[in-house]
């Protein structure tokens, strides 16, 4: 292979090469730090948010369906791990528990304890089905009504999470722990590897999160370039035209909801295990907007942009607001805690980005065209987005 043809290969596989380089460098990062470093902790959260943001990006960025209830899938993913990898259902099997390769310690506990890989499969199934169920009623609706219906579903799921400790499925079995967290959750235990232990080292969780990100990135790129991905983008750009070209609207939209939801579920299950607790308070509306802000900031539909947006906002949330800028109001002579304003800051970012650079920081080429092609097509203020 000559240098030139190698260069061509790299250029043609820019995404692949970029991903390998980025993830490879990222994988080395924790080795340079203390095993329990806060930076590693922040990076783990960032990686989990990347997975979620890429999932929401499929629904909002690719298929153009504004989903304001994405937190529902985070909740369902987290409760999957809460239900099937903790002592939440402790009376099961006469208090002896059900165990499937859950790891040395968990195998002795009451409750259902499944291996984390099984949990991921379950989380994908549960959230995928939930995504379709939530998507079904919105099929007839368009635009902002979809946003409100998904928001309503997100709030309903949140209410069930909060009040789930009063819902008895059977004697001794409650739906959720409510505001009392379901805890502890089993640590991740993979075949052939020693059990993860976040008390002594965060590295294994970090690498596991990176593997998740890698898989999700590959799936995202492959999906985007697949027949399904092209159908999503066609629907986003013009639903009527797509339908008349033979794109099956129902199936395509439901696939978008299900796939997007499944990523949220994977990430939710991972975060549940990482936090070792699942608490209803995590699943508020604001979280949906947090994830939405990531994909808007990065650039709707742009995979690299969304990943970047997720990392940036995650660090703004976990590092910049509490650690770096928290003293700023005090220095200005104002007396308040910046961390209570994090959602105001996200709101401000959304507003600024949407008004000044609606295509996001790293726009997808096609999307940027879409946004600009309306300008100059006529001076009508109202017609541009008519379907």
């Amino acid at each position, binding site marked *: 292979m000559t240098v030139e043809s190698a260069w061509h290969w790299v250029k043609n596989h820019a995404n692949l090469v970029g991903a390998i380089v980025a993830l490879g460098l990222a994988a080395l990062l924790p080795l340079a730090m203390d095993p329990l470093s806060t930076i590693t902790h922040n990076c783990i959260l960032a990686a989990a948010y990347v997975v979620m943001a890429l999932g929401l990006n499929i629904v909002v960025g690719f298929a*153009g369906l504004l989903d304001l209830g994405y937190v529902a899938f985070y909740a369902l993913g987290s409760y999957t791990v809460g239900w099937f990898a903790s002592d939440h259902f402790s009376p099961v099997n006469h208090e002896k528990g059900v165990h499937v390769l859950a790891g040395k310690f968990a195998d002795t506990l009451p409750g259902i304890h499944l291996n984390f890989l099984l949990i991921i499969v379950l989380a994908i199934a549960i959230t995928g089905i939930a995504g379709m169920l939530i998507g079904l*009623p919105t099929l007839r609706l368009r635009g902002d009504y979809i946003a409100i219906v998904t928001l309503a579903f997100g*709030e309903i799921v949140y209410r069930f999470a909060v009040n789930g400790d009063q819902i008895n499925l059977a004697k001794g079995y409650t739906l959720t722990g409510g505001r009392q967290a379901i805890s502890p959750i089993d640590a991740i235990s993979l075949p052939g590897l020693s059990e993860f232990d976040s008390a002594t080292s965060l590295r294994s969780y970090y690498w596991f999160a990176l593997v998740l990100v890698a898989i999700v990135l590959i799936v995202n790129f492959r999906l985007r370039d697949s027949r399904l991905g092209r159908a999503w983008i066609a629907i986003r750009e013009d639903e009527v035209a797509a339908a008349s070209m033979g794109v099956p609207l129902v199936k395509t939209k439901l696939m978008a909801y299900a796939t997007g939801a499944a990523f949220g579920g994977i990430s939710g299950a991972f975060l549940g295990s990482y936090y070792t607790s699942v608490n209803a308070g995590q699943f508020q509306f604001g979280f949906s907007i947090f994830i*939405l802000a990531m994909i808007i900031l990065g650039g709707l539909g742009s995979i690299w942009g969304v990943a970047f947006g997720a990392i940036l906002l995650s660090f703004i949330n976990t590092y910049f607001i509490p650690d770096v800028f928290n003293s700023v109001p005090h220095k200005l002579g104002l007396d308040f805690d910046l961390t*209570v304003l994090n959602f105001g800051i996200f709101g401000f970012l959304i507003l600024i980005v*949407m008004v000044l650079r609606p295509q996001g920081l790293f726009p997808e080429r096609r999307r940027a065209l879409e946004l600009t092609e309306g300008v100059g097509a006529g001076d009508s203020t109202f017609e541009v*987005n008519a379907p």
Partner: protein
Amino acid sequence: MSVETATAKPTGRRTSDAVREAFSKYGLILVLLALPLYLGVRDLTQDGSLTQLGNNLVLGLSNGAIYALIALGYTLVYGIIELINFAHGEVFMIGSFVAFGLWGTIGLTLSTGPLGVAVGLLVSLLVAMVVCGVLNVMIERVAYKPLRNAPKLAPLITAIGFSFILQNVGILWLGSSPASVPDLINSQKVLFDIGGVAIHRGDVLAVAVTIPLVFLLTTFIGRSRLGKAMRATAQDPDAARLMGINVNTTISMTFLLGGMLAGAAGLINLLYQTSIWYFQGFTAGLIAFTAAVMGGIGNLKGAVLGGLIIGCIQQLAEFRIGAQWTSAVVFAYLVLIMVFRPQGLIGEVTREAG
């Protein structure tokens, strides 16, 4: 606002359409009546009286009057630019905050005499209305106007951004937990008692402020020149522009009116609930939005009707099902309406709903 659908539809209506229309409309009415009817029957069989239901419904109607005022703001804005003004609930919240702040400034306390309270409340009503109206116009200028050419979801997203910003203004103003407010009008005092159904001062106040405002609004839109411009812009902005209507001013005017109503609702809510919280706007906003959709978005009478109905449903849910389930019940209604009858009780088919 739904010109395209109107032209796209065949002029002659088929019977099956009419049947479906009647089915979905009366189906919705039936679904709305289900909860009060069920509770009424249960009360009658268990206690032999409808007093409790009556009390719930009185509270529901007075709460509903507040929701109606907020819902009018949603429906006005949606009618004219087909945008869900997501920040509208927060404008209502700011209305409460402004009024409460003003009480502190002008020294309105529990020891103030009745005349002082009356004058003070009137002043705070006007100030809250003006501030909220101007705030709403400002939101439109900053967050929606630059995006009129953008895809439709863009202004919705900026609206959400703005709503979070306003919520945090509320947090900075009065902290992040609910605060109680002096009960200036003694809102829990029972004024009438009709067969065991108590009507409180707060209930009378809510209705007494809402009715004149709604009347003024409908007269303004129906009779005045600007109201005519608003209706024309709602119907066809391009044609309205060709007829010499300043569309931008008209849109600003709509936001001003909506904001003023939200400000009035903010003051009433303050007096009625005697509490204030930065998050009150989010919940009330979503409930009021449900009301607007229920009545048929874009339709003023529908918004008022929807507000009253959703107020009753909300109160019934709060007292009979449990306060922790209230929002879930209201949202379940929202989803049902959106899915099965997006045009609402007396609305017309819009593009979204199509």
